[in-house]
């Protein structure tokens, strides 16, 4: 194996392993842009991963699996969205409840699927692009969910930045009073954004159980939901920087899982720690001084909005 083809393999593995984190992170980014903090990403990814796995197994179609994951996880996110947005319940506690529920539900209903072969996505090389030297095999020779992630990054960035509903969603996260005063339905925007976050976390889970590691085990997400949360902060709520972060972490995950396959003799448990330690490191840098001021957290993030109790 030449050095070049090894690098290509590793980069391709990084893009593949980064996709679940990217999709879930994009979902959280949308929700947070609208002002809703949802710590339940890990639970939502688990629900999505199991739904995708089970429906794909039952129907024989990974497409049906991914669609079902998106729908079910979107509905699951309502458990967070309705109490938090409508009643102003503490989003931290509600998000943690979502993690407990998601891990519990997926582990309960997932028992029969442990050790079963997955009805996985097969790679769908993009015509024309996959033949490009270098980036073709790295970016464009993957399963359809990787491609979806690649399309969503510019899509979400453009939508948030340049469209009227995108701007309104951001105003709901920055200054809900203003959006309300102008007659826009703040609560609907916030609920919608949280549900969209659930849909994308579900697709992230599907990317995990139908593509990255086609299988089902308890706690399959293994902290990826939490890493996605940290990456949204690291990315300063920018989809493009989120993409970079997701690839970086995908690379670390890929190295951790594939070191032996690449013939590297490194301690397994040390390598598995890499993504978590790197997340800590990233948080340290994303949280300090100039950078933090430069990043823009939505001003009303995690704060409830109601007309009666103006803050």
């Amino acid at each position, binding site marked *: 194996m030449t050095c070049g083809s090894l690098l290509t393999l590793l980069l391709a593995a990084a893009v593949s392993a980064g996709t679940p984190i990217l999709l879930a992170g994009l979902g959280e980014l949308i929700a947070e842009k609208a002002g809703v903090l949802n710590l339940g990403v890990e639970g939502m990814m688990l629900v999505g991963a199991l739904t995708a796995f089970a429906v794909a197994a039952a129907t024989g179609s990974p497409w049906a699996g991914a669609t079902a994951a998106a729908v079910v996880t979107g509905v699951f996110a309502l458990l967070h969205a309705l*109490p938090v947005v409508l009643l102003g319940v503490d989003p931290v506690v509600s998000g943690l409840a979502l993690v407990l529920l998601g891990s519990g539900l*997926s582990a309960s209903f997932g028992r029969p699927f442990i050790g079963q072969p997955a009805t996985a996505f097969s790679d769908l090389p993009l015509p024309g692009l996959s033949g490009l030297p270098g980036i073709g095999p790295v970016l464009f020779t993957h399963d359809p969910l990787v491609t979806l992630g690649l399309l969503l990054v510019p899509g979400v960035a453009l939508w948030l930045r340049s469209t009227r509903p995108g701007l309104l969603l951001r105003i709901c996260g920055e200054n809900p009073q203003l959006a309300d005063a102008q007659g826009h339905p703040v609560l609907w925007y916030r609920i919608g954004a949280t549900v969209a976050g659930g849909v994308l976390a579900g697709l992230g889970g599907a990317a995990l159980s139908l593509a990255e590691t086609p299988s089902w085990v308890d706690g399959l997400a293994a902290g990826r939901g939490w890493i996605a949360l940290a990456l949204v902060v690291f990315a300063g709520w920018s989809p493009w920087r989120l993409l970079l972060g997701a690839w970086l972490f995908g690379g670390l995950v890929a190295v951790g899982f594939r070191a032996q396959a690449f013939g590297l003799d490194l301690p397994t*448990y040390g390598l598995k*720690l890499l993504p978590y330690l790197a997340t800590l490191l990233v948080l340290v840098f994303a*949280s300090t001084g100039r950078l933090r001021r430069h990043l823009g957290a939505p001003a009303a993030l995690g704060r409830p909005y109601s007309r009666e109790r103006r803050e």
Partner: protein
Amino acid sequence: MSWRLEPRAEPGLLVEAGWLVLAVLVAVLAGALLFAGAGAPPLAALGLLVTEPFGSGYGLAETLVRTVPLACCGLAVAFARQANLWNIGAEGQLMIGALGASWLPLAGPPLPEAGQWPLLLLAGALSGACWGGIAALLRAFRGVNEILSTLMLNYVGISLVEGLVHGPWKGADGFPYTDFFGPGWRLPLLTGRVHAGLLGVIALAVVLHLLLARTRLGLELRVVGAAPETARTSGIPVRTRLVLALTLGGAFAGLAGALEVAGVEGRLHGGLAQGVGYTAILVAFLARGNLLAVLPTALALAALTVGGDGVQMAYPGVSAATVLVFQGLLLLLVLLGGRLAGFRLRRSPGGGRP
């Protein structure tokens, strides 16, 4: 004419209690549905949830044994909550506490037998404090969100223990746990499997309660939590207090790990925590910031675990994770009930919009 929710000035105790009872009832009902869905007769299974943990001497002992780490970790979460910090890292702090405690018998200097288990507990608490201290320093001096940092440290802590028991600390029989430690490292037993740690954690809760209620430090922690600006202008060293709240929390969770090693397992292995650190969040939430109330809520959730095991044993269709679902529902419903207690339903004449 339309109905609308409007905020209530001061929800009475009765209203709050009513919502709490309603939340628990709905959670129990949902639990019954979960059992029925898994092919267990719901009433009999619900009955087991009560008789299993309290109905026999063995069950009661098991419940008390499981109460100890839950109460310790519950204190770890509730103590940090005083300063408005979320310690989601009790799971990892427990594991690192167990690791530090096990280091003494496995690789530490020779010690006289009389001092062995007290030093082991101290080592556990110190290791847990270090682990919590990392997140504490990052939060106080770098502004790193402690929810995310303590959570990441959980994965790191568990992996460290796994790496050790699969590697250098592997026992003589080749399985991923250490050899059993000598008798001097084991806690005295009260009765059956119940060890002296139970008395220890009760004492700890009382001391912490007094500390928070009676001392200047306790007041400072609360002011830092409730109004950091006021704390700053009143001359309270905010950063030091934040560090203290999370670090001491880590010490309590680390102590839980040491107690599990010295009181229950007698050795170290990777499955020591089993989600206790996460259940502890529920323990602390239900105790509503009252450190004494952590004891009964820990007992209740320990009983739920023992009861859940019993149901699972009697009806193989029921998964171990059903308890997790129930915990999640309980958390969500009690949260919701507590919030709804702050509203009243009013019929407003005229349009729905104010």
